[in-house]
């Protein structure tokens, strides 16, 4: 064990008191005074239609209305990886709920009323509501006729005259030969529907254009700097640049990917420019949260696997057809990430993967915790279970045999790094008592089953995504750290404080880390991809080391102590060779040290740190996906579950679930355990309860918690056992790597596999509701 003082300890959350006392402020809590205006959007009732005419007269005449804005004023496209999304719909609407116009009024009720008075004349088109229809449609009524003209990042490959926004190919080895070598070839199809994030805080944005031309946005966001960049890009035709766009992000009430990038915030930014001097608030309703932010994309997976009789996997052929929705500016990268990694954490020599991003007339797909991995793992881990069964092999042994190890080639050709997958498998297997018989329930209608699944995930990000940090000392030796990552419940602020604490010998409770303002805090790409602890943690560590070096320089120069003898502890400079020496930081940290002649050296200690990976590359052969190094690292793990099913009702209860994850180094074990618990619950919800339904016109039928069920405290497993595995990440802060998203990834195949174990029923589409189980049993 390492002898860290603050790392690896469960420090108390630095934001805990603010949140428990209610002192923490979220966007909707901020007071903007009596000048505040309120906006409401006019939404498309159609999934696909041409806008023929917009009449705003009646809306404008309603007393209290300040402005009515349509797409005419903002004919601009924007997006993160591809510029395909509109501030307001232009000639056509592409999903039910898309914003066509907006009203700004003195109060929220007037804004809403006026929005209903805006008359829009549509010519309906046939909506493309599933991947099959969308792939067939090649005519002028494909979702984006102008796709060929859109800007996109160089690693996307849109197909001309089609609804394919991106086609990620992976070709490795020889698939034909691989199937030839196999003793068993097994094929099947799996379906994963769409899901909603359901963060408890709704999206909110307040925009204000000062009379001096500075545009400020207060947003509930995972991505303040990326938002600033996208606002500046989209509004550049109006003369805005980064200098006069500012984003302030207070506390955020949950993200799960849904508050990454830019969605509704662009509307607030645009509207603010039309009413200079007055702030405008746009607050999404729960319904809008469901249909006009991002949704997790649905996928249809076709899997064909070749194995030898001894269980060695020779080949994987997998096609993933993604229902990416009306706009894919972010979602196409989910498709890309899944394509790169759809082998799962397995050593497979011959691989063919097609991951296809398909436009449909459903709400925009986008980032969601797991970023495509939960979606393909459902099929893959269900599939491997069936293969082990057919081979007559223990499924855990099958997984262990093929589990990826350090040095094995990844699907895109680079080698896998050191990892603790085997340890995770073994510890999970032991904890769930895999080799001992299951308990037989006393109630004869009930039966138990066990499921097992591996999982992995890499951050999906541009090769040069970076993090920066400023660190400043105060007179009392307390510290302010300025970063631009977001606290979205995961404990980021606390962990950044722990990292600086470890380097500088200042306890975390003396360190403030707060939410960003892009004018004051340095650059951060986004709080996504489970990369923030790793990436921003490196930046904070470097900032702390920069400050430490300044302290050491000062002591060395002024007190003439050898720098190698100096160490920092409890806000003091100490000496390894002079145990009695102790200089309080408060003696010099702002004012420096005085020389015998009365002059001063040193001054306020301010550190800076930056981290950008320098070994990644998104350049690869588009036909094979080989040649690049798109992913910085993979976090791996294993999970197992025991379920009890009531055969008559189909209801499942969960006596126990176990998840082991190799997070490199748990900087704060309590927070790691919190992620395991929360992620597992979210994953179990997607497989057991959440069930997004659209009607045949593309309208979402359950944009509410009455009919879109996320678990309550009554629906938690009896026991969740978190297991921390620590094989250090060489380039991570104190060896840490990301683990936030991963914890939900294995949940769906766990349930599917446990159900199979209990009843011999293989359900190949999510969710696996009680009703579906009963239907399977009756049939």
């Amino acid at each position, binding site marked *: 064990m390492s002898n860290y003082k603050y790392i690896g300890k469960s420090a108390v959350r630095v934001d805990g008191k603010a949140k428990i006392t209610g002192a923490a402020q979220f966007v909707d809590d901020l007071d903007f005074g009596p000048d505040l205006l309120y906006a409401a959007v006019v939404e498309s009732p159609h999934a696909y239609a041409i806008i023929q005419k917009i009449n705003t007269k009646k809306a404008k005449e309603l007393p209290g209305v300040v402005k009515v804005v349509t797409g005419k004023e903002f004919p601009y496209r924007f997006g993160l990886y591809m510029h395909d999304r509109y501030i307001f719909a232009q000639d056509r609407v592409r999903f039910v709920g898309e914003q066509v116009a907006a009203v700004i009024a003195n109060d929220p009720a007037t804004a809403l009323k006026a929005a209903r008075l805006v008359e829009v004349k549509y010519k309906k088109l046939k909506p493309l509501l599933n991947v099959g229809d969308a792939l067939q449609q090649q005519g002028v009524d494909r979702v984006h006729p102008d796709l060929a003209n859109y800007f996109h990042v160089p690693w996307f490959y849109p197909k001309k005259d089609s609804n394919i926004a991106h086609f990620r190919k992976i070709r490795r080895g020889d698939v034909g030969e691989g199937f030839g070598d196999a003793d068993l070839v097994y094929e099947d199809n799996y379906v994963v529907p769409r899901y909603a994030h359901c963060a408890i805080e709704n999206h909110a944005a307040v925009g204000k254009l000062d009379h001096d031309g500075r545009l400020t946005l207060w947003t509930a966001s995972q991505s303040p700097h990326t938002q600033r960049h996208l606002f500046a890009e989209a509004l550049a035709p109006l003369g805005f640049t980064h200098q006069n766009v500012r984003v302030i992000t207070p506390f955020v009430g949950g993200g799960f990917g849904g508050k990454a990038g830019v969605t509704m915030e662009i509307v607030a930014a645009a509207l603010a420019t039309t009413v200079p001097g007055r702030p405008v608030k746009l607050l999404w*309703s729960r319904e809008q949260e469901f249909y006009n932010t991002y949704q997790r994309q649905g996928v249809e997976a076709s899997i064909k696997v070749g194995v030898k009789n001894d269980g060695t996997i020779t080949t994987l052929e997998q096609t993933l057809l993604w229902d990416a929705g009306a706009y894919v500016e972010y979602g196409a990268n989910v498709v890309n990430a899944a394509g790169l990694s759809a082998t799962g954490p397995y050593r497979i020599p011959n691989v063919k993967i097609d991951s296809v991003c398909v436009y449909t007339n459903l709400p925009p797909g986008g980032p969601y915790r797991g970023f495509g991995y939960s979606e393909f793992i459902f099929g893959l881990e269900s599939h491997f279970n069936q293969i082990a069964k057919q081979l007559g092999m223990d499924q855990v042994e099958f997984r262990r045999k093929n589990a990826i190890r350090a040095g094995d080639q990844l699907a895109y050709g680079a080698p896998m790094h050191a990892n603790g997958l085997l340890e995770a498998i073994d510890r999970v297997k032991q904890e769930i008592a895999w080799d001992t018989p299951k308990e037989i329930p006393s109630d004869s209608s009930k039966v138990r089953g066990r499921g097992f699944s591996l999982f992995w995930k890499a951050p999906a990000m541009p090769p040069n995504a970076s993090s920066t940090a400023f660190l400043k000392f105060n007179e009392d030796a307390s510290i302010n750290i300025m970063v631009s990552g977001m606290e979205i419940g995961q404990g980021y602020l606390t962990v950044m404080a722990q990292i600086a604490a470890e380097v500088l010998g200042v306890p975390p409770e003396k360190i403030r880390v707060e939410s960003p303002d892009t004018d004051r805090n340095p650059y951060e790409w986004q709080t996504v991809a489970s990369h923030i602890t790793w990436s921003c943690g490196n930046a904070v560590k470097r900032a702390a080391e920069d400050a430490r070096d300044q302290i050491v320089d000062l002591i060395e120069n002024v007190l003439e102590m050898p720098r190698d003898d100096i160490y920092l502890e409890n806000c003091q400079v100490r000496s390894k060779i002079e145990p009695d020496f102790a200089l309080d930081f408060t003696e010099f940290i702002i004012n420096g040290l005085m020389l015998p002649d009365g002059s001063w050296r040193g001054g306020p200690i301010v550190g800076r740190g930056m981290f950008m990976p320098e070994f990644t590359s998104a350049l690869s052969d588009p036909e094979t996906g080989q040649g690049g190094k798109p992913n910085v690292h993979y976090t791996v793990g294993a999970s197992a579950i025991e379920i009890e099913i009531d055969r008559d009702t189909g209801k499942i209860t969960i006596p126990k679930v176990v998840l082991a994850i190799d997070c490199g180094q748990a900087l704060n074990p309590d927070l790691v355990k919190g992620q395991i618990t929360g992620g597992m619950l979210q994953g179990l919800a997607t497989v057991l309860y959440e069930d997004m339904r659209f009607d045949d016109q593309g309208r979402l039928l359950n944009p509410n918690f009455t009919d879109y069920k996320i678990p309550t405290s009554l629906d938690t497993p009896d026991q969740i056992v978190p297991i921390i595995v620590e094989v250090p990440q060489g380039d991570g802060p104190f060896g840490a790597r990301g683990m936030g998203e991963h914890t939900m990834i294995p949940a769906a195949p766990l349930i599917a596999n446990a159900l199979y174990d209990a009843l011999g029923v293989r359900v190949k589409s999510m969710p696996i509701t009680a*009703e579906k189980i009963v239907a399977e049993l009756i049939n």
Partner: protein
Amino acid sequence: MTITHQFDYIKAKSVAHACKLLSKKGDHRLLSGGTDLIGHIKENLATPDSLIDLKGIDALKHLSVTPSTIKIGALCTFSDLLNSKEMAKYFPAVQEMAQTVASVAVRNRATVVGNICSAVPSLDSAPLLLTYDAVVCVVSSKGVRKVPINQWFISSRQSAIRKGELVCAIEIKMPAQKHGATFVKLGRYRGEDLAQASVAVVALPRDRYRIAFGAVAPTPFRADQLEKLLNGKQLTDNLVGQAVTLIPSLVSPITDIRATKEYRTHMCQVMFERAVETAVARLR
């Protein structure tokens, strides 16, 4: 969500005052818990001219108990049912039902009378009220009338209430003899949910049964045919099996986003079988 509809708000001083307000021209809605009504106004599903708030009328607040009757006043909430010692003593199944209504916060506001006035097919209180032959006390400026609960539910979302009337209480006769009862509700998970099917069974001495279903027909209903089949006979597996077989012809559930008619029907059978077993066990 913002309320855009404009309406008058009047706090009624007495039942008579409320009745007078109700008798005026226009769309007037009675406000007690408001857990349905306010949501409907937010969504513009209800656009009343006025809301008549009953919450200040003390006479409607009581859960009153006499040797012969327990009377649930119009302002009694589901939490009041759960907190009532008399309910615990005489009608524990009513508490079992109340425990399944939404969440604690909703139970603290939602009233039982409001529940039956909504007359939605899935309302939780109906099946037990039906099995206990409850009586709905209705008042208007013309006087008082009493409606047996089995005549209360006319069709989906329509009760026997007439314009100008308000429900002041629900009366349940104290059980004349020892009985065993239960309420079973189907939800999609253990958290708060609207019933996709529900069943109440009351078992009385000498092989007498009262059975009612909710959420599987346009209105909650007493299953007379099942009662007829079971009454007076000793309960055997075979007899219960016959009853279970009969159920699909008695219920007429719909398929909607919450459940298919097939699953609802299946679950009526499963829940009935289990409920009978529980009720009989509680009778012993």
